[in-house]
């Protein structure tokens, strides 16, 4: 039996290339330098931004305690996920690492599954402490121990889930 044509494969006109031109196809080093300089200028605001993001995480944790449910859990996950994605840019890689661990916990325990409240709180408190004390050195022994401990607890919890 002849096969119908189930797939249409086509190349749309490259309007983007027509619009921006450029012939060499490489990274525009001048533009890149301008961007890095603009980010440097913006970096004075990073501490305040991280303050707000950590505040949002603490508030989301409070709301989840008051009214546990899919909506408050999703808000808590979004707050942790944002910090995971941004804190390294804001010069706080350890805060990013702890938020990544919390995101993993919140994201991988199935909806409706029991979230270990103590472990969630431990993450939120660790984020607050590291942010408050402005610990940015990833080799800081106390922070390394704390991160490793939290990672291990999350792995243990997920193995049981």
């Amino acid at each position, binding site marked *: 039996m002849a*096969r*119908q044509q*189930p*797939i*249409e*494969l*086509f*190349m*749309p006109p*490259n*309007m*983007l*290339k027509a*619009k*921006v*031109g*450029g*012939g*060499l*196809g*490489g*990274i*525009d*080093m*001048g*533009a*890149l330098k*301008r*961007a*890095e*300089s*603009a*980010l440097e200028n*913006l970096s004075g605001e990073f501490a305040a*931004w991280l303050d*707000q*993001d950590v505040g949002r995480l603490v508030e989301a944790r409070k709301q989840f305690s008051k009214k546990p449910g899919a909506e408050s859990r*999703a*808000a808590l*996950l*979004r707050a942790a*996920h*944002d910090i*995971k*994605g*941004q*804190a*390294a*840019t804001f010069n706080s890689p350890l805060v*990013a690492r702890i938020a*990544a661990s919390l*995101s993993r916990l919140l994201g991988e325990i199935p909806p409706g599954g029991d979230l270990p409240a103590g472990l969630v709180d431990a993450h939120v408190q660790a984020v607050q402490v590291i942010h408050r004390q402005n610990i940015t050195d990833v080799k800081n022994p106390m922070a390394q121990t704390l991160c490793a401990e939290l990672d291990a607890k999350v792995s243990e919890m997920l193995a049981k889930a």
Partner: protein
Amino acid sequence: MSGYRFDRLKVLVVDDNVHMRKLVSTILQAFGVQQVFEAESAERAWPLLRENNPDVVILDWMMEGMSGIELTRMIRTDAQAPNPFVPVIMLTGYTSVDHVRQARDAGANEFIAKPVAAKTLMSRLVSVIEHPRPFVRTKIYFGPCRRRRANDEYHGPERRADTAQQAAE
């Protein structure tokens, strides 16, 4: 120097985090992009998309309400979408291969794992300018071809899900 006229670009940035929007917009403006539109949700992005018909969309995955994945599907398949071929760059805190696959299956052209760096954003922009992918329309998918490299050497069974299904029938 690549000589791109980034000043001619219109870019829509969709992220529910105001700081991430500010970061991405700052980088784009430093590249020379003069028209950067920002939306704090996929729902707010849709009318902006229809009014301004951007050349590139950069969007976050995890947002309250409609996700970046759902918005990408709408861009590709909704009859009201102004340009179903618009390059979509998914910017996300997700980093697993499975998430990359999901973004690709929704119709995203490129994927950037946060934290965002100017060099990565530039390289993804250059990629959508210089190496656009062919588009594929099947019963279950419309979007950029998900096979990154052509493989003319392959002689095994058909791997596209609906072609394989039809061959079996």
